[in-house]
């Protein structure tokens, strides 16, 4: 499941960040700011119109992400193990 599909206030775990060919920089940046495999992640709220941008908690940090950015982040259940 991708992060942009996740409902509000459900904690998941980052599985991986897609290194989209079109947006290689974006994926790197997402990793740098903390979207790293294993990190806990949750969508806290969405803006009113169209739900963009999303307010996302990753680890202890909070970021505003656009849907397209969130769509690069694959998440999994906390109970899933590799």
């Amino acid at each position, binding site marked *: 499941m991708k992060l942009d599909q996740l409902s509000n206030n459900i904690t998941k775990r980052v599985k991986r960040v897609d290194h989209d060919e*079109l*947006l290689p*920089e*974006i994926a*790197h*940046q*997402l*990793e*740098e*700011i*903390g979207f*790293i*495999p*294993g*990190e*806990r992640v949750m969508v*806290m*709220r969405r*803006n*009113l*119109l*169209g739900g*963009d*941008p999303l*307010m996302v*908690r990753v*680890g*202890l*940090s*909070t*970021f*505003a*992400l*656009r849907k*397209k*950015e969130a769509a690069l982040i694959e998440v999994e259940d906390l109970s899933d193990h590799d």
Partner: protein
Amino acid sequence: MTESTIHFYPKEPLIALVGNPNCGKTSIFNLLTGGKQKVANYAGVTVERKEGKLVLNQQVLRILDLPGVYSLYPRSLDEHITCNVLLGRATGEKKPDLVLCVLDATNLRRSLRLVLALKRMGLPCIVVLNMMDVAQKRGLNINVTQLAKELHLPVVSTIGVESKGDHALREKLKEIDLSKSGLNELVEVTNQSPSYQTEADNQVVQNILKKLGLDQQIADPISDQLDRTLLHPILGPLILFVVLFFIFQAVFTWAAYPMELIKSVTDGISQLILENFPDNWIRSLLVYGVIAGAGGVLVFLPQILILFFFILILEESGYLPRAAYLLDRMMGSVGLSGRSFIPLLSSFACAIPGIMATRTITNARDRLVTILIAPLMTCSARLPVYALLIGAFIPSRELPIGIDLQGLVLFSLYLSGIVGAMIVAWVLKKIANSKTSFHPLMMELPSYHFPSLKNVAIGLWQRLFIFLHRVGGTILFLTIALWFLASFPHPPTGAEGPAIEYSLAGMLGKLLATILSPIGFNWEISIALVPGMAAREVVVSSLGTVYALAGQAGDTAEALTPLIQHSWSLATALSLLAWFVFAPQCLSTIAAVKRETGGYKIPAIILTYLFLLAYLASYITYHVALSLGWG
């Protein structure tokens, strides 16, 4: 902003502060250096460089505040600067002797990765664990000794927002042997390559956190609580609007008394000079040049400080990026992202730092559009012009619910600039082929902080200094230059009318007035606009000088307000206000655009489109006002 390049290497040890954005690095910098700071730019690039001095045990230490970074993998301009300084590659900058790595104690996971990257660089490093008070409040008990053991580095804890919060750090700095060999002991020899290794570092960090029993996540409950209201889908934007509106009201109402005070002091001084000096050209220069000019701008200091006070509070509290979050959707509709909000908001203070701040926008097109519209944000240099015209032509009337008419007009001028900018961005979006464009946002929303009064005070002090520097430098110089132009050559004997009409400035003004009279500008305004190209507020001082010299060989430097009230129509005043919403009346901004975009193309586009827009807006305003009978 003071801008100069630094090209010398003082012999004192250089200590660099490195840390993630929002880790409280600047608070630590302020604590260590107090008021002894110097703001400048790095050589060749417009990244703000802050340096200060700390004296410990009679030894002077230079403290350098580096731009906040998430990693040492250079991607943005900020990260390039930080990396280059740390590697000793930055132009005009020596390699730091010691690095203070500032960590946000409430977010160790992210900040520890930076420590690991720094260690690989082989620089002597002290870890500064900041925001320990907040961490403790959230139940995070960090064992400093154990952390030091795990990292093989000295660790001290600090509280950036308390006046003695840097005690432990100062003690540590006293303790450390700052000689070459002493510092080398703080370097851990590693064989790892200093390359990019997020995954591996993350494992190491994870292990450290586990050993310290800190691998549970505890977010900030207070911030989450506040966000529930402040970022509420409906309440949030409403609150933002009210906050901004309140600020503009305060700029007018709070400043009234201190402005009166400054005015009576400058009036008193010119009165004193007029009474005690013989009537010659020196007296004329002092009264009509220096005091009417520079003094006329100084009056607006209280308003500028009040505006900055609020901007600093919003910045310190962590509300600014949230405003960007709230506005992202709106910005998106004109083809921008919320990221453009912070540069645009800085542009309300001054377009130059705003244009500099656009380098945080990763998308090149977004950055360019933001630079193009940044000059439309009403900068504080326009405030004196607006304040003068509104004060002279708009009655101070109490409207329902305690709103003042003058404040309302000021707010609508700011709004016109914003609406104009949105339209320009929208047009650019329509012109450009935006199929492939992607506008990243990816912006951190830091925890709320109670604004530290000390940081706000230091920020205000810097603004005050920069403003006075401008008044004493550029503005004073231009006023004196204009005084000369407006005083020479003397009128031929037997000539009628004020002497200024025969001067160089008078001739130039009349020439310009032929172009500008369709929008209601007389030759006095036209001439004042020319030196105003250097800095907008100079228009006020120039009008002061022009009118003082055009006065009936008066014995008093009469205040500008009643003068223009008598000689301008309301239509002219409104037209001039409209002109200032759009006109690119600032060469430093154009120079900053040239530097940031690396060529003359964009500056030329900006100059052209803004002048056309200004002329159009003034033309419409003037003719609508005339038809309403305000001529």
